[in-house]
């Protein structure tokens, strides 16, 4: 997190990039893609079981952002916050579609053999089930804090919450997740 004298040029650069993005300047969008794709992928991946779906949805996030470039206004909130907001909507739509088709589709995909080790699959499967027990805000805070390693202040900025609210949300989310993981462990 930039503080003091460094924060001003960084904010100016972010505002300038946002302005170029709004004008749909390809170089600006390439810059945004290169800077944020990994973050968007990790965010999406923590919510969906299939890597192929995560890849497709992460791409959709940038395509939606690009199509709505003229709606983006820079008001001190970073572009990442905008992308996270779009990612939440894209994932929500995806999960609704899966729900309509039958929830088991996603879990079946999770259990299909892939290059991953079985232990990783088990961990992801258990984690995905535990994540489902959380609210959307709780899922977001865990992804930002522990998948993307965002500090509390950065997470607060991206979620447009206070730092205290983020800590509170995080504590409740981790406690719920722990309970859910233990519940799964007890299952035969």
């Amino acid at each position: 997190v930039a503080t003091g004298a460094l924060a001003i040029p960084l904010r100016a650069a972010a505002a300038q990039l946002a302005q170029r993005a709004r004008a749909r300047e390809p170089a600006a969008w390439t810059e945004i893609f290169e800077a944020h794709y990994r973050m968007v992928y990790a965010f999406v991946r923590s919510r969906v079981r299939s890597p192929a779906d995560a890849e497709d949805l992460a791409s959709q996030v940038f395509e939606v952002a690009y199509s709505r470039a003229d709606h983006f206004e820079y008001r001190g909130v970073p572009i990442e916050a905008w992308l996270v907001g779009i990612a939440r909507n894209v994932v929500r739509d995806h999960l609704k579609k899966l729900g309509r088709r039958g929830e088991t589709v996603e879990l079946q995909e999770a259990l299909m053999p892939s290059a991953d080790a079985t232990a990783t699959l088990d961990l992801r499967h258990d984690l995905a089930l535990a994540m489902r027990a959380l609210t959307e805000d709780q899922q977001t805070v865990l992804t930002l804090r522990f998948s993307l390693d965002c500090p509390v202040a950065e997470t607060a900025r991206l979620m447009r919450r206070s730092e205290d609210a983020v800590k509170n949300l995080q504590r409740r989310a981790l406690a719920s997740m722990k309970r859910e993981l233990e519940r799964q462990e007890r299952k035969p």
Partner: protein
Amino acid sequence: VSRDRIDWLFERALEDGRVPAEASPGERLEVERLLSAARAVRGAAAASAGEAELAMARARVRFGQVLAGSAASARRTRPWSARPLGPAAWAGAAAVLVVLLGLAAIVVLSGGGAETAVALEPGDYVQVQGTVESTSETPAGRTLRLATPMGPVEVVVAAGTPLTVRGQRRPLSELSPGAGLVIAGLVADDRTLRAESLALGTVSPHPPGRLERLEHDRGRFTGEVVSLALAPDGEASRIVVVGPGGRRILVTLDREAAASLLEQGPSAPGRRVSIDRDQTGNVVVALETAEGAPPARPGLFEVTGVISAVTDDGFEVAARGGVVTVVVQETTRVVRGDRQAGPGMQVGQAVAVSGAQHDGVLVADLVVLGRVRGHGAPR
């Protein structure tokens, strides 16, 4: 154990990789549990890091194509009127038009089942406007076939269901072919609509037509709401809006968007609204306010105000015209617009109710709860 202290110990533990020595045994146990859950999330994320690199290479190509396609399209685009069309092009266009008209006719003539199926799903609470096509008597009660802009809807009206005209009760025998109607009810598993209240009046004549979903990149537009469907969990709702050019657009609303619309007027059909998206793609819906007197439209009985008392079977609303007693039934659909307000209904909470009058009380079929006086704005 203080929550703030646990948060502080936990953040320290994340930085140092171990629980601070000054933690008491109880605090240590709690922080260890939080750390364990955090490690599980981190472990799964680490396992995905390699995937992200592979995915990024493919995604880079895909996004590059989007950018290139957009630039090429911008270069190619010319005003329609400036494009010359030769005889062959005209013949081709005419052939395409014939095929499209044929397809449209098939959809409409099929009874509109597919369109109404999308707009109204079993378990939904629904408000819909239309014109009575036919009526018949069945053991379940009076059955109506209602012509709606999405196609015909079968409606079952049990004896005693309130029918009103401008708030005054009327006998169900006035439900005759040609009558304009707004109905509130629940969609049964067989997709018939079980009416809870009905209001007679003139509705806009919209013939049945194909539904379009709201595209991600569609700009702001205005139109008339012709149906509202609230899912049982209250998290997602759908409205059908007849927009510019008579296009029927299906708009999905999240709980906040639905609440913000219904708080202003819980009887939705016939209202003019503007639809837009905010910068993250969330749908934003707002009532259009016309200057002067609002246009006449049939509406279900509705009241907006502030809860002045909570009773055993409902609550009382302090409204502009006085206090109204509201009865909440098992089938009443409740939309909570303010997540911070907590469960239940509270004195001082903004509320909008739609339903039917019975013996001096309002029997609610829809309750929209808003902010509690003194709370911050809803998120």
